[in-house]
């Protein structure tokens, strides 16, 4: 029933002057109070070769003993070790995470060294992104583990950067704020140091490595920041031991030829580093990480996944639409693949079936053939047997006939014999005898044959 008529005032707000004290100048104070209650969080990544003094510098920087132990030089891969500490100074609570690289620069083949570091940084961004994209999220309670500052320790060779250094820094400069420091600076003399610094900076510039520049837009700190930008990289010395100088105990390294005082600005740039890193620019480091490096990561990641802000007709596309479209695609893809698999399965089954049928048929064929052979042989054998029996029958008939005949002929022969005996020579008798003998043997044979 009631429609609304939203008429915005001018977008450019009009400046107004107050005629009295309102009191919102306490707003920064309220903001700071809230942050103090919540606590702050800061994450430092230290990259450097084993034994270059990373842990000692951290101890010196934060004035505590972080209980690190030395690592060996024989690590097969670069690993990252993260430790979180709760520090407190006056009423400020800081959750400090120090990530150390273990085994950096120790391998024979250093090609993969930087990859672990890059992956670690990306993982932290990823978990923040996941938290941000959750439906039910709790960003305010989230422990931010993204790396805010990366201290890159350069070995004090006095000549130039190593190629590993250049490669690593180039890979990291778009992901994290890099602050290069020259470690163990007490091995370099002042003049060498000056040349070394210039050489390093020029190498970084010529290779297009973007290290972190201290911000110069706020007048309160621009002067000091600009000055410090010119002193980069800081030449630092770390020490957790104290030496008595005059009547004070100071952090220093004692050599036979003198004492290097850590907090003496003439000896090294430690104080400057501490000031820049902690006292002046900590908040800016955190902000840069969030607004520049994290946003870049987020943009790349989302674009990689296929989300865009505008579709081909360059109309703004909402994340939801893209997401829905992607999901449809994905589901469709899934279904298609399922179909394919099912089809393939069915096909295979068919093939197997036909194969088996073939084999069955073959076997059947063989079986029948064998059967046929058998029956053939059997019939042959039967035939043979029959013919044999026939032969036996005929033979026995013949034999019977022959016997009969013989009986008759014997009688006649006997009669003749009486007649012929007078005429016949004894050969005839021999013949008769032979005949009889033959018949007898025949009979014998008959009997034998019968008995078979």
């Amino acid at each position, binding site marked *: *029933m*009631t*429609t*609304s008529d*939203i*008429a915005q*005032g*001018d977008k450019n*707000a*009009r*400046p*107004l002057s107050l*005629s*009295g004290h*309102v*009191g*919102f*100048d*306490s*707003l*920064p104070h*309220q*903001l700071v109070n809230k*942050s*103090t209650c919540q606590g702050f969080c800061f994450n430092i990544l230290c990259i450097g070769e084993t034994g270059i003094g990373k842990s000692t510098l951290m101890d010196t*920087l934060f*004035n*505590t003993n972080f209980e690190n132990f030395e690592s060996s030089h024989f690590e097969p891969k670069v*690993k*990252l*070790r993260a*430790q*979180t500490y*709760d*520090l*407190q*100074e006056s009423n400020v609570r*800081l959750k400090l995470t120090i990530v150390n690289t273990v085994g950096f620069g120790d391998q024979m083949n250093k090609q993969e060294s930087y990859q*672990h570091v890059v*992956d*670690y940084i*990306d*993982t932290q961004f990823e978990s923040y992104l996941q938290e941000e*994209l*959750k*439906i*039910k*999220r709790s960003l*305010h*309670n989230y422990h931010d583990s993204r790396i805010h500052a990366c201290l890159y320790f350069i070995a004090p060779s006095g000549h130039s950067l190593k190629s590993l250094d250049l490669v690593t820094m180039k890979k990291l400069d778009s992901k994290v704020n890099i602050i290069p420091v020259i470690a163990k600076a007490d091995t370099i003399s002042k003049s060498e140091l000056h040349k070394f610094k210039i050489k390093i900076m020029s190498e970084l510039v010529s290779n297009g490595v973007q290290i972190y520049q201290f911000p110069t837009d706020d007048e309160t700190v621009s002067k000091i920041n600009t000055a410090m930008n010119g002193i980069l990289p800081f030449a630092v010395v770390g020490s957790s031991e104290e030496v008595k100088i005059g009547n004070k105990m100071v952090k220093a390294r004692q050599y036979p030829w003198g004492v290097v005082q850590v907090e003496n600005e003439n000896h090294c740039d430690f104080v400057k580093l501490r*000031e820049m890193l902690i006292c*002046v620019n*900590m*908040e*800016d480091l955190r902000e840069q990480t969030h607004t520049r490096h994290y*946003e870049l990561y*987020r943009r790349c990641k989302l674009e990689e996944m296929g989300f865009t802000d505008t579709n081909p007709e360059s109309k703004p596309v909402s*994340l*939801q639409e893209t997401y*829905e479209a992607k999901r449809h695609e994905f589901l469709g893809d899934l279904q298609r693949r399922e179909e394919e698999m099912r089809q393939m399965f069915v096909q295979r089954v068919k093939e197997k079936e036909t194969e088996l049928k073939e084999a069955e048929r073959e076997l059947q064929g063989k079986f029948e053939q064998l059967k046929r052979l058998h029956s053939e042989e059997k019939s042959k054998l039967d035939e043979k047997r029959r013919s044999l029996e026939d032969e036996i029958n005929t033979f026995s008939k013949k034999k019977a006939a022959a016997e009969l005949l013989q009986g008759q002929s014997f009688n006649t022969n006997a009669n003749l014999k009486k007649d012929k005996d007078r005429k016949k020579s004894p050969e005839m008798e021999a013949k008769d005898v032979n005949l009889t003998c033959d018949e007898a043997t025949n009979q014998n044979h008959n009997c034998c044959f019968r008995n078979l």
Partner: protein
Amino acid sequence: MSDSKVTAHLDGIISDFEGSEVNPSHSNMSAPPHPQPPAKGASHGTGDFSYVGIDAILEQMRRKAMKQGFELNIMIVGQSGLGKSTLMNTLFKSKVSRKSVVSNPEERIPKTIEIKSISHDIEEKGVRMKLTVIDTPGFGDHINNENCWQPIMKFINDQYEQYLQEEINIDRKKRIPDSRVHCCMYFIPPTGHCLRPLDVEFMSRLSKVVNIVPVIAKADTLTLEERDFFKQTIREGLRANGIDVYPQKEFDEDADDRMINDKIREMIPFAVVGSDQEYQVNGKRLLGRKTKWGTIEVENIAHCEFAYLRDLLIRTHMQNIKDITSSIHYEVYRVRRLNETNAQPNGQPPNTLVNPQQANGAAAQHQVLTHEM
């Protein structure tokens, strides 16, 4: 995708993690409490060498906040003639209300509820603030006031929507402009009896999406006893209808907070009188209303509770109000919005890009809501 590759490497890394031990070593730096925060970059030549400088971050934050400036969006809701514009002018000691900006020759009640917002840039002691006053002429002025809360609700949700759209952009601004309504001041006419149905209806619906600060307008028509009785009745009415006005009980963070907020809860709604004219009282020029029987001093707490309201709103709880808007009300809106577009056809929640997980307690309590648009 490169996910699988990252996970594999992460395994390699985790296996060497010394556990991310939260060493609860409250290693107190044993720094002597410094009289004032360290000046920017002053070297501690003569100071204690064990000082690290972590607390300098407070100064850095302050500096950053001052540079960025603040934003505050207040909405004023109430029938016409209750003194809303005057109160705004009194609160911010300048002509911030719409009437002062847009000269309106005839005071007419608009036919439909309009929502008009005016922005101002004000500055005090180096702190810059962009104040937006959102006026709702026509509210409660018609004969039939059903659904009068709808356009206002829609406006508030539109602001949330705008912020959400910007936030989920791929290429988003460094600082998302915040136009969300931080605080809604609801003006109760000084009848002296109890809450009217219109009041109950509006506040019960809107207390779920925005911080409501109820005030009794034109409180100079009530005597002190009448005022106390009225306040008590209102508080009972709010309780009976389950209306949670600012400061909401469920968002108290710790015991200190609760103590402070309980004191405030005893006093709401504030009975206020507004005026932008100064009069001479006892030799001083004060803001007030001059009548034949005396002058009502606006900033005198014996006369009215304007000072409490101003302190609450501006001097002590402004940041808190903004925080509750952004971390609780906005998150509730976001959850609802993402759920309604992401739910699959069969109504199951998605589990790919966004993972629904346990919310923190306060937000979880807000899940059982019915929002009507």
